[in-house]
């Protein structure tokens, strides 16, 4: 092929890239494999992992094992929907555009916001984009604050996004009850935005009404983030609490855990901020004959029109995941979502109560959803090993995220976990 295109070797293709930007070492990669030996290799890796369906996983921390209704793979199997790319040509893509429009409508209702975009890459990048959006709206302000009870990975992504900028990210501590400590906000006057997650990384449901008031009092925008949108089936949506920008991870809505990805960045805001919002937006319109149709709208915010002045360098969305989430939400409906959330809540409370009775110590007194933290006086990793042999993956040690939390474990229960499994965990802890 090099002969045909008139190139000496592979490296010549990269000659236009300045040498200082190129990686000059040899790539540390194994030799290529045949397709069949690659399959064998993948199976070997697979057998080393304790994942569903062979195991019941009682760890959430941003990824949740929910049931995926049979309608989802069925509808998503239609080839017309299988494009990861956002459609520029409305005349060719009415189906996809309508799907995205329905997603935006359902998402806006779920999050309690005026407008939702056609999605971001995932919850973490959504949070980073939300904070940058807050800085655009805050104009001259250079600082934002994030709660340390936000998912540690989300905060890492925020740091990465902010590294090359001259903006500062302040971290807010959390209280003994597991909710974010907002008391230091009163002394701040130049924060563009303050971000909270609810339910937060510890599963604790934040008092969003009070937080919104405290944040608005210092002239900042409230960014409400989430990793478990199922919670909005039971708890008040962030938008209805007054949050200005709402963003989070939508994996719970019909997407498998899949080794951590792909995810879905759900993102919405109040209407008056729509021009500062990143990402694609599908609007409803009428064609020449007055028939209902869908097009990308407010594109002037975006990279392909505004270049370096764009609100974000996101010029695409998570097409397939977005449609999956809209079908999941439509399949459940409002009532279904409420029932599903209740089921998740009840099962989690059952395990929480059981573990506390079995001798574990509760860590945070605040209300939780789907996830909770307990502390063990003895070495829980031994119990974990025993449970693993029974096909149960239980509890995430928080020591690696929060120094001093070496004996604390984060548990998660979803509707898919049978009561018998919870009883086994409780009885193993009791021993």
């Amino acid at each position, binding site marked *: 092929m090099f002969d045909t295109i008139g190139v000496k070797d592979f490296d010549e293709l990269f000659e236009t890239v300045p040498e200082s930007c190129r990686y000059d070492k040899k790539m540390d990669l194994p030799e290529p494999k045949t397709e069949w030996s690659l399959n064998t290799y993948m199976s070997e890796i697979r057998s080393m992992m304790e994942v569903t369906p062979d195991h019941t996983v009682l760890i959430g921390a941003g990824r949740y094992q929910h049931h995926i209704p049979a309608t989802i793979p069925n509808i998503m199997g239609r080839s017309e929907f299988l494009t990861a790319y956002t459609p520029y040509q409305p005349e060719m893509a009415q189906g996809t555009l309508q799907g995205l429009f329905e997603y935006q409508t359902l998402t806006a209702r779920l999050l309690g916001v005026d407008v939702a975009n056609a999605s971001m890459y995932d919850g973490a990048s959504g949070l980073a984009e939300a904070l940058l959006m807050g800085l655009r709206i805050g104009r001259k302000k250079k600082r934002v604050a994030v709660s340390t009870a936000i998912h540690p990975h989300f905060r890492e992504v925020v740091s990465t996004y902010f590294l090359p900028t001259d903006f500062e990210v302040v971290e807010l501590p959390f209280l003994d009850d597991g909710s974010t400590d907002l008391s230091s906000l009163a002394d701040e006057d130049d924060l563009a935005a303050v971000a909270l997650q609810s339910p937060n990384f510890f599963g604790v449901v934040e008092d969003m009404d009070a937080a919104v008031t405290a944040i608005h009092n210092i002239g900042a925008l409230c960014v409400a983030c989430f990793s478990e949108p199922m919670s909005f089936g039971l708890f008040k949506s962030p938008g209805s609490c007054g949050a200005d920008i709402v963003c989070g991870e939508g994996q719970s809505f019909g997407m498998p855990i899949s080794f951590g990805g792909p995810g879905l960045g759900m993102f919405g805001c109040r209407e008056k901020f729509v021009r500062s919002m990143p990402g694609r937006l599908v609007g409803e319109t009428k064609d020449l004959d007055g028939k209902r149709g869908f097009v990308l709208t407010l594109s*002037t915010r975006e990279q392909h029109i505004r270049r370096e002045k764009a609100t974000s360098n996101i010029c695409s969305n998570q097409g397939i995941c977005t449609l999956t989430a809209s079908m999941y939400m439509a399949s459940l409906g409002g009532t279904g979502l409420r029932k599903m959330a209740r089921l998740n809540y009840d099962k989690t409370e059952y395990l929480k109560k059981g573990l506390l009775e079995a001798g574990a110590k509760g860590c945070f007194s605040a209300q939780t959803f789907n996830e909770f933290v307990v502390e063990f006086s003895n070495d829980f990793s031994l119990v974990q090993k025993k449970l693993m042999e029974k096909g149960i993956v239980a509890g995430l040690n928080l020591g690696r995220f929060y120094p001093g939390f070496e004996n604390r474990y984060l548990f998660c229960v979803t509707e898919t976990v049978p009561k018998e499994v919870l009883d086994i965990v409780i009885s193993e802890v009791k021993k």
Partner: protein
Amino acid sequence: MKEINELNLPTDVRYSDDHEWAKVTGDTIKVGISDYAQDQLGDIVFVELPEVGDSFETGDEFGTLESVKAVSELYIPVGGEIVAVNNELEDAPELVNQDPYKGWIIEVKPNEINDFESLLDRDAYLEILKGD
């Protein structure tokens, strides 16, 4: 699109080569965009305004105009402090199309009135347009 001889280019304002106009009113200067600029942009759907109290150097970007065709930055022809913005444009950006000289965008207290004097008069601006 208008022909050059159809453009409304009043003589009581000065022009910048970025197609803004400026007009002295007392000790402040009102700024908008020329008939040529609004005609080129087409239907204007959004005007992003600065805040009163913001300061700009001559030539700085102070806002954006969004039309159905494009987004354009606005450059301040005379540097100074913003003393007023035309809030009417938030709900009715089409005022700029209807009459770009009534549809002013910002009012500036100039740092240096000489910057105004060095702007183009109607004839000089017209020469630039003919050259475009």
